């Protein structure tokens, strides 16, 4: 489980990356699904997250389908970043 600080950082980056203007980090449940019923994001948002991983953490995904597991929730995203980050 990624630490609280990284989770907060990921929430802030996600809010900025897909312009969730009216949300604050504390409004987002780290365990809740990001796509579909959760925040209602779509495939373009997933591509923005892939870009975020590469730009901010030096993680390059070749296949957008890999994102499905990684972007399940803020928590899974933070876990993946913690294990794979190169910066």
């Amino acid at each position, binding site marked *: 489980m990624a630490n609280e600080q990284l989770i907060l950082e990921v929430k802030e980056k996600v809010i900025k990356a*897909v*312009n*969730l*203007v*009216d949300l604050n980090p504390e409004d987002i449940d780290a365990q809740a699904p990001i796509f579909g019923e959760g925040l209602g994001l779509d*495939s*373009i948002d997933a*591509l923005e997250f892939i870009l975020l991983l590469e*730009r901010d953490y030096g993680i390059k995904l070749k296949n957008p389908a890999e994102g499905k597991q990684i972007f399940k929730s803020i928590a899974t995203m933070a876990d993946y970043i913690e294990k794979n980050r190169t910066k």
Partner: protein
Amino acid sequence: MRILITGAGSVSAIGLNKDDTVRSLREARSGVGPLKHLQTVHDNLPCGEVDLSDDEMKAVLGIPAEKPVPRTSLLGIIAVKEALEQAGVGSGLPGRIVLINGTTVGGMDITERTYPKVDTRLHDCGGCTDLISSYFGIFGEATTISTACSSAANAIIFGSELIKAGKADVVVAGGSESLTRYHLNGFNSLMILDSQRCRPFDAGRAGLNLGEGAGFVVLESEAHAEARGARALAELSGYANACDAFHQTATSPEGAGATLAMRGAIAMSGLEPSDIDYVNAHGTGTPNNDATESAALRQVFGDAIPPVSSTKSFTGHTTSASGGIESVICIEALQKQFLPVNLGWENSDPDCIEPYVGGSPAAPARRPLRHILCNSFGFGGNDSALVLSVPSPGGNSPMCQEECSGRGPIFSGTPRPANVPSTAVGSGIAGRDPGCKIGPRPEDEPSDCHIIVRGMRYIEGADFEWKHLLNPMKARRMGTLMRRTLVASLEALQQASAGPGQKAGRIGATSSGGESGQTALIPDAVITATGLGCMENSEKFLSAMLESGETMMSPTDFMQSTHNTPGSLISIHLGDHGYNSTYSHGESSLASALTDAFLQLKSGHIRTALVGSHDEITPNTSDYPVPDGSLALVLEAVPEQGQSGNNYVEIADIKAIAPLGARNLYDAILRLQEASSKAETVSCGPVVLRRSSGEEASGNE
């Protein structure tokens, strides 16, 4: 009226003319490979590039090397030239000759070399078309359709409509598009480019390859062709345009838009699905498109799917030009009786149809090719399909004669009940009235309906209220122009929903994020004019690309930079599967869009249309001659007598595709609406407006 094709021209990675194109197709020789002319950092993205530099094309065409001409225009000139020569159409021919070009890239190749300086005349899609037009000097009018990858197909559809309405004698229609770093990086940011040659419908398909080129056809009526002794290559026997209304870049899983477009096109041709001998698929090679198109093909054809192939593993995806190039391929297939193969397909995917990959040389031909369905689907869910047939004098289409007269309830004076699904069950053009499944157009009958303005809204600048109509979560990706487009459109549609017998839907945002109880008319067609589209997004993407050296590009900025973003956004927001098209021809965009709506309303294809003019002007494009504003007009066709309400302003005629200011039109309509006088007729640019007095109308109720 039968619409014939009497000339065709094509340039792409597999040939600089039709004959070379056919040779490459028959010899299974792909044009997809490493880039040679386009300068980019991406060396792992094969493309279908035309093997001529700009200077080489200029030399061939006799254009001075120092004259700046976008590559899109150069490619367009090559294909139009071939088409005109085959048709024998030149300066000696009298009558109205119109050029309709489909392009989205326009002059971006020049802009990406000069940015932040933007030469708006060269950047502009319409400017590119004008350069093609002026090369020949025979076109009285020209316009440009920009519905991304279905642009050329929609150009051919509009060309046919102009001829059927008597607004043109000969139309040269198709599309042209050059490769640019801009859209190569854009498609790359969407992660839909294959680093190998694309494999449409294959289980292992991993995306598309971009391509470039141009494809044009010469359209004219049978009578016109006969009178001047022109030989028909094919008949344009059917077509339809529908909107998937699902997502800006993704296709719906069930392929609603694609199914409606194919069904509509086949219905207009008077044929049954079993009459279709070959389908030239959109087949881009992306996992999403090919699965959706397969689902749609299964809905249209059931278990009896005719041979299908995508020719994009030959040409690459030539985006706006694809419908033109592929129409020319279909015409050649009819002429020379051969089936293009789906190159590179090996592995069956349960989610996809199995395409035609060729048979042994000894195998007998399946059956003669008489009717071909050609699909073109674009971003924003702009889906169109054409039926091209072998021309046979006297008519071979089994037209429906008894069941339907081809006239919808719009002419009978009976309003369609609000719960009847869109006439258009999606396809504005071919669907028409739900009671009339197939049938000839009502062209021989007098158009006695009036096209009245039911709702209107104009907003200028960036300072406007939007939160009452748009949920901030839904609007989070929308730039100023997208929000302004939606607000103006929704408010005009709300105003129009007061009319009798309208289809209405719920719109508006509530605090909980759901939709409020406000109702608005859901139009049968959404037709949009925009010169530059969402320029704010285009420039954001462009400057990021130049600053970053083509890395870390945002897909959000790219997907909103196609010109059809505002228009398709409206249909996605309303869930409107009807006709949807976008015109991008500078100051003439609005007159083009109005003409399209006017002709469809007059002919009874549709009963209501939302016509918009939406532009945003950035500091780098401040000399572009359209206002930074959004005009939304809701038009309705009403029978000559009765139920039109009291005072109204009608569009009596549109004389030509010519410059028309959105603000001027708004002011002119407003003045007429508020005028105290009785009947009055005024002109605004090419548009003739008429105000009818209340007494006349009420006397008939």
